[in-house]
């Protein structure tokens, strides 16, 4: 029996009057990869951002329902959002490295936590770069601008940067959608590696990718969660017709 990491109950999200997420309930298992699939605008990215409260930044966004991480309600008024985000790493669709050196990008998070000791920072950089399978490529150029790396390298560096704050959940929003097939393969390999230690939630447009990397798959459509199940099941005999239509390419 796998451990429960995230539990969402009856979540609604509105932008002004427009409902973007409609009564979502799901459980996400610890140290597994859960993929969110669905057509553009179905709410999967919005839902991902609910999990680390990134939607707080949007002015007219209102949320009702319950999101429990390790049993703690993350929308509790007394909860420290900043600490929450430190426990949840996020990787975005496009690499968003800062215009700083490779080293400074990775230590940005630890520095926020007050880590300033040079040796500790060096250790963190090496450890996270190894985890993100980019150490060999950057170890000799840590003081070069991060933006001088290739697209695929930048994205893996983003993963390293996210890991540097020692999260236990990793949220990935279409992390490979802007990458070539080789870089994509590297990221997917990495996800396999990382799930030993992290709970990973990944949004993807690419159904083969969902099938390859995930243990569970959730299908979203028009702001609703249509179905969530083991990936093998979703891709062989989904219980809802809509899911099957989407997966076989009949719409979406």
């Amino acid at each position: 029996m796998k451990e429960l990491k995230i539990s969402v109950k009856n979540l609604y999200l509105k932008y002004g009057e427009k409902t973007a997420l409609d009564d979502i309930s799901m459980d996400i298992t610890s140290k597994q990869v859960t993929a969110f699939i669905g057509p553009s605008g179905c709410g999967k990215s919005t839902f991902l951002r609910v999990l680390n409260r990134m939607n707080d930044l949007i002015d007219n966004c209102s949320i009702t329902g319950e999101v429990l991480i390790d049993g703690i309600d993350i929308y509790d008024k007394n909860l420290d959002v900043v600490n929450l985000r430190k426990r949840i790493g996020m990787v975005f669709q496009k690499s968003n490295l800062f215009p700083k050196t490779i080293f400074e990008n990775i230590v940005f998070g630890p520095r926020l936590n007050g880590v300033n000791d040079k040796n500790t920072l060096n250790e963190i950089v090496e450890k996270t770069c190894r985890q993100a399978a980019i150490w060999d490529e950057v170890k000799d150029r840590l003081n070069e601008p991060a933006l001088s790396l290739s697209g695929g390298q930048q994205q893996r560096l983003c993963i390293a940067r996210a890991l540097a704050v020692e999260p236990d959940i990793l949220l990935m929003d279409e992390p490979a959608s802007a990458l070539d097939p080789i870089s994509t393969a590297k990221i997917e390999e990495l996800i396999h590696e990382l799930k030993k230690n992290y709970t990973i939630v990944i949004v993807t447009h690419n159904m083969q990718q969902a099938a390859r990397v995930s243990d569970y798959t959730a299908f979203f459509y028009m702001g609703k969660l249509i179905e969530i199940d083991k990936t093998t099941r979703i891709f062989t005999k989904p219980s809802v017709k809509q899911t099957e239509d989407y997966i076989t390419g009949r719409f979406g």
Partner: protein
Amino acid sequence: MELGKKHKDINGFIFINLVRLMFAFLVGLLLLIIGIIAVNGYPVMSLDFLISSPANNMTEGGIGPAIFGTIAVTFFMVLLAVPLGVSAAIFLSEYAKESIYTKIIRTSINNLAGVPSIVFGLFGLGFFVLFIGKNLDEVLQTGLLFGQPALLWAAATLAVLVLPIVIVSTLEALNSVPKSHRDAAIGLGATKWQTIRDIVFPQAKPGILTGTILAISRGVGETAPILFLGCAFFLPNLPVADLCIGDYCIPMINPTEQFMYLAYHIFILSTQSANPTKTLPLQYGSTLVLILLTILLNITAIIFRYRFRKALGRN
């Protein structure tokens, strides 16, 4: 149309050459102005001209005090305008929620840029000298120290004048920082303030400096706003006072003194002097110095901006 035959874009040809002509005309005009000033101003140029005071009823001597006054006023102006303008822009862009009030504020800033500069002068006299200065004197029991036209109030008035420039360019600089960088910082657990301090502001610095450069250029060239604010016809002494801590004294700019100002000096040489023809070489010389001073201040700021950009890994 036949393949292989080159199509002639007559309209495009006319347009691009018209644009080239306009451009050449503009550059030519600028070079002409600077050239006339340089040629006529060059003969009076000397170290003595740059440091000595005007003499013999303004028809001889140099412009030292005016240069000093200009730099002093500009210094205080930047000191007041940049922190205020940058804070205002950060508030507007990062903290204030879009509402009718922020719209009014934005419109006001744009309108402020269009107010005639003489109006700023009158405002400065009424607000800074007569209201703030007089009340300061009353509260601090300083007699008549702040409640009179002085360098500080001239700088403050010019600061208000250039405030829109600083705010608008800072706003643009802040807006040009990609949202994805903010998301990244927030996602890593940075607070809003940390995100602004560590990610947004460093990237906006070159743009803020551009605003500062523009502000300096504008401020140095203004005459009207400081007419009533302590800008003197002629002063034998520099607005300097010794600041003493115990027995140890260092000369400092005294912001409560009156001052001479290059732009104003040119104005009086050409209109108020007893013999404008006789002062003509001095006028050209002063103008040349004013232009060179503006260029020098600009270059300083440009060097800073270049360094900041380089630190960001761009060029």
